[in-house]
């Protein structure tokens, strides 16, 4: 695998693409709203996802506010590949696989911090924050062997870029730009990550948990499933706010599903619906006072999204909730397990007591012991585990809601559907999944969605 091209050593070495699983098209019939359960159980499908989804897509790796200074780093995952995301002396951000190119041990065991170098515990290979191999224990012996240090730095990720403070990385040198990848979803991202001119920040630490479910059950829930809230979360809502979840299925005229490139956002226009579930009146006041200013910045529609009943997934495995302010990545750990990493985001310019209330709110609702997270985890675990049954896993699943709800006559970017009780986004998510799984490279991934936004915004 030690391929080189010309004089430049390619340190991100890739195998030629593996042969695809046969008959992928038979896994779903989205027109009819039918889908196979193999997506959530089959080990070969999972291995192909690691290659064609996680080693190919732009994945969220951190928020700019986590690594403000040179040497600041976070350790995270691109699929199951552990990477270090490091602020450089020139202010740029680089990413490397967290593995020593000598014998493969991890070079960093902390989740985040500040480093002058990363030193491997095994033989003392030492790497600069730029990934270059700077030296090693018993360096004379390597010098005697004629080893060229410049050929043995940490393996870099292919690209790192950011949008509105959110940093993404891809392991595929052929990936489109981040702007193209996010496409028109950037219009909606601004409603949350650019509602205030000071931008957002992550506060507190990362809360991690393990859920025994397939990663797609979590991603597709946040991409468009508000339907479950009125049933699954009824008791949680009554505990937090003293009443049931709003009956959003009765007022589809004021809510939408929008999607682009498999990313999706379901949203109402009630300004504070999600936020209300945290049970903190001061947070509602904060949003109500901010809303007219957001309307000036971004227009009426997006100003009503800032804390509304809504959820979003950025394909494939990063999601967030406006108003509840939880931001999360569902890292895959085999077909039947995820490692969930969550953070709390807030507007940087918000008063400290407002930030503290949001942090408390996310802990009460969307942490491992949070009233809503526990509801979801149990559902996703049994949605996954039931497929252990040989006959059970041969029964199709249904995702056909909202087939005739496409809104054609609109200026809104992306694919727009009327009514947030819908499965349009879920179908778009799985269509993108299928497109990527079938494609040998980015060049052959069909561009189904036509952007209205310019690439460089």
């Amino acid at each position, binding site marked *: 695998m030690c391929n080189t091209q010309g004089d430049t050593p390619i340190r991100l070495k890739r195998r030629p693409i593996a042969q695809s699983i046969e008959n992928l098209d038979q896994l779903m019939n989205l027109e009819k709203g039918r889908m196979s359960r193999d997506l959530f159980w089959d080990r070969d499908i999972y291995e192909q996802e690691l290659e064609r989804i996680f080693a190919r897509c732009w994945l969220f790796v951190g928020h700019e506010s986590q690594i403000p200074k040179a040497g600041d780093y976070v350790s995270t995952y691109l699929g199951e590949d552990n990477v270090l995301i490091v602020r450089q002396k020139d202010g740029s951000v680089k990413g490397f696989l967290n593995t020593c190119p000598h014998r493969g041990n991890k070079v960093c065991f902390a989740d985040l911090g500040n480093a*002058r*170098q990363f*030193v491997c515990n095994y033989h*003392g290979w*030492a790497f*600069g924050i730029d990934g270059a191999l*700077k*030296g*090693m*224990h*018993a*360096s*004379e012996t390597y*010098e005697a062997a004629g080893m060229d240090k410049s050929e043995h730095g940490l393996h870099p990720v292919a690209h790192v870029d950011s949008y509105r403070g959110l940093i993404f990385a891809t392991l595929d040198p052929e990936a489109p730009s981040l702007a193209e990848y996010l496409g028109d979803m950037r219009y909606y991202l601004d409603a949350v990550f650019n509602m205030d001119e000071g931008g957002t920040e992550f506060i507190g630490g990362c809360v991690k948990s393990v859920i025994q479910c397939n990663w797609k059950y979590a991603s597709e829930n946040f991409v468009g499933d508000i339907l479950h809230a009125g049933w699954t979360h009824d008791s949680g809502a009554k505990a937090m706010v003293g009443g049931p979840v709003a009956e959003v299925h009765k007022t589809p005229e004021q809510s939408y599903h929008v999607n682009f490139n498999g990313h999706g956002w379901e949203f109402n226009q009630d300004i504070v619906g999600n936020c209300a579930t945290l049970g903190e009146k001061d947070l509602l006041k904060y949003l109500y006072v901010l809303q007219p200013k957001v309307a000036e910045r971004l227009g009426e529609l997006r100003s009503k999204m800032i804390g509304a009943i809504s959820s979003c997934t950025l394909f494939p495995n990063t999601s967030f909730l406006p108003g509840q302010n939880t931001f999360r990545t569902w890292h895959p750990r085999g077909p039947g397990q995820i490692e969930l990493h969550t953070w709390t985001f807030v507007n940087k310019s918000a008063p400290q007591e407002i930030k503290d209330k949001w942090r408390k709110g996310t802990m009460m609702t969307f942490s491992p012991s949070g009233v809503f997270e526990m509801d979801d985890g149990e559902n996703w675990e049994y949605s996954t585990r039931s497929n252990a049954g040989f006959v059970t896993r041969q029964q199709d699943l249904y995702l056909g809601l909202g087939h005739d709800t496409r809104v054609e006559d609109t200026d809104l970017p992306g694919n727009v559907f009327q009514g947030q009780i819908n499965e349009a986004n879920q179908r778009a998510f799985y269509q993108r999944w299928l497109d990527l799984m079938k494609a040998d490279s980015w060049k052959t991934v069909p561009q189904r969605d036509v952007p209205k936004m310019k690439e460089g915004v």
Partner: protein
Amino acid sequence: MSQPILLLKRADLEPGKVRKCEVGGVALAVYNLNGTFYATQDGCTHATASLSEGDIVDDDCIACPVHDGTFHIPTGQPMSFPCEHPIRTFKVIDEGEDVLVDLDQESDEAADAV
């Protein structure tokens, strides 16, 4: 006693900074610790590394840029893993704007150390 050799002008090195100087065929790391200048050998005693590429930490220690081991700048003594052997220090002579070094003598602090 050999002739002191000019290292640099005081103004050429800010407080809290270190830089490499080659004099008389010897590579030195020269430090400005709050206005007091020091000089040591530039090479780390543990592995191949140029100490002048490291950072000054804990007020008066140099952290090796490779394994982050530290030496006490005034005395040259090793302070933390993996540094075990002291670095050579050199006597720095302050003459107004000029900073000079005597390659035959240790720093006063190293000479005073038991």
